[in-house]
């Protein structure tokens, strides 16, 4: 009843673990894979990265602010970790790095059933800006990754751009099998007692409840224009949130910060969606994109 198909990938249900959430060890991924329709790993780079100093993740009003700094033990070591993946749901490996590095990472992960390209890291060369804010660059990276793999690839889109649809179009042209919207919103929280930003990196990314209306808008806009599937992400805590994303046009949803409320969130979202479909006598397909038809 809840099965979804995204490209070649079949998800038993439309909930997916978002990247960077309990995605550092295979045992935590295994744990979530037992319930979720799919899991995305923490983003991995070619070289090991310690990430920023703590504090890297803090609770804020209506959400979570983080600047973890893409910490990971390198693609090589992480691939060893993933060898023990239990395979209970499609495993999507999140890749980060420069235009040159990302395509190189694919071959490390034979156990992956798909790849998510996290293009929200600073663009090597053009200081500060993100890879994911240049549609041509996004297109090129997709092309290069597609050459290395026949598995589905997804581009994780940043909301910190003037026009997210333009970036989504770049991904589509480059052959991406779907886009994931959204990554975190650039944000900052200052502690007034200390008189300085709380995160060691000062600026971080806002996730959780606060960003849901922005994420829903992004999914809605992308669905209007793109032909490839859109996966929604941002502030999903209840089944209602998930249904909002489906109605905006998401074929599946990712849950990140919501795990704060417990790993059982996947179960409760799944059951909630089921009940909703029964109550309204609707199929999942009816719901996907419904807000565009009403």
């Amino acid at each position, binding site marked *: 009843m809840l099965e979804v198909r995204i490209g070649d990938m079949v998800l038993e249900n439309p909930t997916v673990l978002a990247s960077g959430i309990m995605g550092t060890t295979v045992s935590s991924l295994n744990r979530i894979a037992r319930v979720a329709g799919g899991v995305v790993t923490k983003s991995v780079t070619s070289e090991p990265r310690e990430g920023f100093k703590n504090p890297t993740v803090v*609770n804020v009003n209506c959400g979570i602010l983080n600047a973890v700094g893409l910490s990971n033990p390198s693609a090589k070591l992480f691939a060893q970790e993933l060898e023990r993946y239990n395979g209970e749901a499609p495993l999507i490996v999140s890749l980060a790095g420069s235009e040159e590095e990302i395509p190189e990472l694919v071959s490390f992960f034979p156990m992956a059933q798909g790849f998510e390209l996290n293009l929200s890291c600073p663009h090597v060369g053009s200081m500060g800006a993100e890879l994911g804010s240049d549609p041509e660059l996004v297109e090129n990276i997709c092309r290069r990754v597609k050459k290395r793999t026949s598995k589905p690839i997804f581009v994780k889109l940043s909301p910190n751009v003037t026009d997210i649809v333009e970036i989504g179009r770049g991904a589509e042209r480059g052959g991406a099998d779907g886009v994931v919207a959204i990554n975190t919103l650039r944000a900052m929280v200052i502690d007034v007692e200390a008189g300085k930003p709380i995160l060691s990196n000062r600026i971080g990314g806002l996730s959780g409840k606060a960003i849901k209306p922005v994420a829903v808008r992004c999914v809605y806009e992308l669905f209007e224009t793109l032909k490839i599937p859109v996966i929604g992400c941002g502030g999903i805590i209840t089944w209602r949130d998930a249904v909002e994303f489906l109605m905006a046009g998401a074929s599946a949803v990712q849950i990140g910060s919501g795990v704060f409320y417990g790993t059982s969130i996947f179960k409760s979202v799944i059951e909630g969606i089921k009940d909703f479909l029964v109550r309204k006598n609707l199929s999942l397909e009816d719901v996907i994109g419904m807000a565009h038809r009403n």
Partner: protein
Amino acid sequence: MYIRIAEKVMENPETVTLYFSYEFPSVPGQFVMVDVPGKEEIPVSLSSESSITVKAVGDTTQKMLNLGKGTIVGIRGPYGNGFKAVEGNKLVVGGGIGIAPLRYLVRWLERDIDVVYGVKTVKEFIFFEELRAKNVVFITENGSFGEKGTVIDILESMDLGKYDQIYVCGPEMMIASILNLFEREKILPLTQISVERYMKCGIGICGSCCIDPFGLRVCVEGPVFNGEILKNSEIGKYHRNGSGRKYVWKN
């Protein structure tokens, strides 16, 4: 939350207890994330409802030794599950700075408690006066006070079967040995053991504190685990740093 250090007690030359004029709604075994001005944010157990006790082992903890009374520190938490109280005879086993959360536990459990507390040399003992009022076996590795040997040596000589619950906190190698001992004695189900892992968020999302093979989060499902859960886990074998890279414990 930003909170002022109300009182500062040097427990020994490398260990300090910082008291706050605020009682954290908490149970023993829970920890807080402490953001030390100019340094990092680190997890530290509560050593009472309103204090933390820290041993200098690196940059941040060293800095904490030098924080003056009145300094404002950022605190998130309390986080984690904490110890559970049980009826009956209780044994509390602490090694080194592991006594910090156990001091809070001992105050909280109040009665029917025996304590085994081991350190390297007598100078390391903290909360000495407070604990001495209880039924405590003090142990030093060099015999400079109390029993000579390790905590394990003493535990092996005791009748552990008489305890309804055993609470443990201490260095990971001590915990590893204790897990072996408890397994041999078939008392793993009766134990509550507090462990440490590298932490970032403290709230169960970043995944950096997860322990194999069940992916349990030390910050949410822990830091206190039943011994059975820990027995065949990574505890005592390896741990991870902030990047997720594994480090095998050197014995």
